[in-house]
């Protein structure tokens, strides 16, 4: 392993690039701002690649660790590191940032520098969340990442953007404030350590574990989002600009799920087993009920937003089955959902940029005017529905397989919704793309240009590559997931 602080670079390269972009100032320099942000995003992606190539598959320990004192008064450290669980998300996030910069290239024409800077800074903060091994550092990144997204939704969003931005911010903050108390409690009861790894090893009584678990659950359930605290997500998605929706769906939702793996399961394993039924029930409600809700949506973005909630239900379900297959399936599902939902939101954005509507009823027969687009959209719709050979299939299949081992009826309930999932996605696709040209707006649509084509190809490589050959993704997870489950199986009550 080299001595370069790769994780620090992954965090600070995008943030510094964002500040540089911000400094280009007014919209007269917009081309410069765009070019700089693309350079920044690509540089951010490049520095994360050695994380994969230099990754040691055979150890569950944290890798690329950096440890420096930050606030010695409270024993807070600048402690970074990734394992097989978090490493892929750092890369995914940096990858998504590139697509977001490309997606907003021409579409955003006011306050260009601020827009791109917001995404770059957020990318760095999100990388910080995935690689933080110190409770305070994690929390600081976790909350700070709200600010850019709040501004992005509020400034470049749709007509109801203010409501959506507030709802998003306050919902998430509500969850994370209880999380902060939990962190402080752990700090005090561990005798003054904020290290997440110390907390993993620390024995905790059952009552305390239950409370901690519930505090974590509130924080992460809001972020995932799980039913019934999911209501902010459709609003935020509908109002956010395309780039905001992509980041929100592809990365921000993963934070909650990641939090379960990093905090809830290893810190409160007994409570996790005890309350697994609750989480599984909530996940099933999300999968089934939200699936049906998605079926009746008239707004495409809302439909994909609800389908995201349903897909994330598979993720939380997979975690709380406590089998390697379930957890790995959930992780695959998370990454796959990153590609697929990002691409879905981008597709809707492409149509919205041309016809300025997200309503399914306003379209019809798009295939006639945008054949290339229709082909890509088809691919991602199929992936969203979980068709074999796409990435969407792999994760869901693994989770369902694990669920069968756990409890047949849980698996049955989850599997039955694959039909609903296929129904709402394909029905939407049919109404939008097929048929004869519905109105003159559709007739005037122009097919995708080179930039959009490039973004689609990037997403397609991710979605198809993972569907056809998931091995490179799953092999890095094995040892970390096994270790995690071994750890969770041990009681911490003494």
């Amino acid at each position, binding site marked *: 392993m080299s001595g370069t602080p790769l994780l620090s670079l992954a965090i600070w390269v995008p943030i510094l690039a964002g500040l540089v972009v911000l400094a280009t100032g007014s919209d007269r320099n917009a081309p410069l701002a765009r070019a700089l942000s693309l350079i920044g995003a690509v540089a951010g992606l490049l520095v994360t690649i050695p994380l994969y190539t230099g990754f040691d598959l055979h150890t569950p320990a944290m890798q690329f660790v950096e440890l420096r004192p930050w606030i010695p*008064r*409270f024993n807070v450290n600048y402690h970074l590191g990734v394992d097989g669980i978090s490493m892929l998300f750092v890369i995914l996030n940096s990858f998504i940032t590139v697509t977001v910069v490309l997606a907003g290239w021409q579409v955003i024409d006011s306050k260009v520098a601020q827009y791109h800077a917001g995404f770059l800074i957020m990318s760095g903060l999100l990388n910080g969340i995935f690689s933080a091994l110190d409770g305070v550092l994690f929390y*600081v990144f976790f909350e700070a990442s709200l600010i850019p997204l709040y501004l992005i939704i509020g400034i470049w969003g749709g007509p109801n953007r203010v409501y959506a931005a507030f709802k998003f911010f306050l919902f998430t903050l509500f969850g994370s404030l209880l999380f902060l108390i939990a962190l402080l409690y752990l700090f005090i009861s561990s005798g003054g350590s904020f290290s997440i790894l110390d907390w993993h090893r620390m024995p905790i009584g059952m009552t305390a574990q239950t409370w901690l678990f519930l505090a974590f659950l509130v924080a992460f359930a809001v972020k995932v989002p799980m039913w019934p605290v999911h209501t902010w997500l459709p609003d935020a998605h509908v109002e956010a600009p395309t780039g905001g929706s992509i980041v929100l769906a592809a990365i921000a939702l993963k934070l909650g799920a990641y939090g379960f793996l990093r905090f809830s399961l290893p810190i409160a394993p007994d409570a996790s087993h005890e309350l697994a039924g609750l989480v599984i029930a909530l996940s099933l409600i999300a999968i089934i009920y939200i699936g049906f809700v998605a079926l009746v949506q008239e707004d495409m973005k809302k439909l994909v937003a609800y389908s995201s909630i349903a897909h994330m239900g598979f993720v939380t379900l997979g975690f709380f089955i406590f089998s390697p297959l379930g957890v790995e399936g959930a992780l695959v599902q998370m990454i796959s959902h990153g590609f697929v939902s990002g691409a879905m939101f981008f597709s809707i954005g492409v149509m919205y940029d041309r016809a300025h509507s997200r309503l399914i009823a306003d379209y019809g027969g798009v295939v006639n005017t945008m054949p290339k687009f229709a082909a890509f959209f088809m691919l991602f719709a199929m992936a969203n529905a979980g068709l074999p050979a796409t990435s969407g299939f792999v994760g869901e299949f693994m989770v369902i397989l694990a669920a069968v081992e756990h409890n047949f009826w849980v698996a049955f309930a989850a599997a039955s919704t694959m039909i609903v999932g296929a129904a709402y996605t394909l029905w939407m696709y049919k109404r939008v793309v097929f048929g004869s040209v519905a109105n003159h707006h559709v007739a005037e649509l122009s097919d995708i240009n080179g930039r959009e084509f490039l973004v689609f190809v990037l997403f397609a490589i991710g979605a198809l590559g993972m569907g056809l050959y998931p091995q490179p993704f799953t092999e890095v997870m094995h040892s970390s997931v096994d270790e995690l489950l071994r750890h969770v199986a041990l009681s911490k009550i003494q």
Partner: protein
Amino acid sequence: MLLMACLILVGDLLAKDQKRTLTFVATQLTLIGTAVITFASSSGDTAYTFSNMYVGDLMADLLKLLLYLTVIVILFYSRGYILERPQMARGEYYSLALFATLGMMVMISASHLVTVYIGLELLSLSLYAMVAMNRDSVPATEAAMKYFVLGALASGLLLYGMSMIYGATGTLEIQAIAERLYLGQFDKGILVFGLVFLVAGLAFKLGVVPFHMWIPDVYHGAPTAVTLFIATAPKLAAFAMVMRLLVNGLIVVSHDWQQMLIILSVLSMAIGNIAAIAQTNLKRMLAYSAISHMGFMLLGIVTGVVGGDARFALNAYSSAMFYVITYVLTSAGTFGMILLLARGGLESDELDDFKGLNKRSPWFAGVMMMMMFSMAGIPFFVGFFAKFSVLQAVVAAGYLWLAIVAVAFSLVGCFYYLRVVKIMYFDQPANMSPIEAPLDMKILMSANGLAVALLGIFPQVLMSLCAFSLLRSL
């Protein structure tokens, strides 16, 4: 040192004439000179002087240095505002500010109940006059009246409480009171009776519920330059006063006053944060926010001693001190921003005046945004670490429920800070006039904003400074 400050002050008063610039420069030089003296004479040891009425210790030195810094910054911010308002007697602002500063210095270093009172009155009388300085303004005069009447009442309460304590212990020296309490030579009934009055008086000066009535009116009615003064520097002195009276003097009966302060603190956070939501005037909103912040700061004071165990005292009090200092820093920036936008003799203290600020000046909108997020306690800004350190003290003391109440009300508070950000960034500007302000003010404002961000990323220095100074002083 006190003598020197007095002499310079009187000299400054005599030299006062129509040349405002001269007064301004003289005032600033006075402050810098005093700062140098304080710094040079700071030995780190606790020393008593003036027959034990006055104490110099590290906490006092640190607070005083920050006090001078705050006043210097305030005067820079206020200068343009004063210059544009001929009706405000210009030179007097500076000399009153200096008198108030002197009062605060006395408060910070008082080791005798009478000294505390003298310092407090010197501060309060200067502030009453400052609030009323805009003679033609009806709201300002009304605010001054309200402030004066209620302030006098509070002083009366405080004095009454002090006399009771004298009655109970037979001494006015804070150190001696502590010793007699420790030895058990006191009359518990009278002492607690006096304590109630003392706490009520302190609560009034801090502006915590239910003794907060004057804060919104005075913040709103006073000229913004004066509001800036009231909202910042006196908080440092009030913190020192609480430390001197309650912690240095009455730590033995901490159980009694902690109970009272917990109630005051929870009420302040509740009423302050909820009432702030309904405000349309930024100054009034910040007044309610000040109430809630003082409530939050008190959390650090009440968690010092748990069940007679003072293990956490240093941790708790230094977190409260850190909280006050960061609040003063942020508050100075926020009111400074109102002054920055108030040009051409017009006020700009309505929330709507900030509409679309991002379009008019992205940089200052960014600075204001940092202030707001810092006040809301969102990282990476210093306000987060202030809340963090206080909450950590609360949890360490075992008051989990109190911590949950505190974060719940911070969430409520977040709403109105976010609204300011929303107004600046999401709304269209009403007028596109660029911001015209003196260069020195712009630079200072930017520095203030950067300080909020940098201290948020590297809070260690200030935190340890607080802890160290208290360690040497307590």
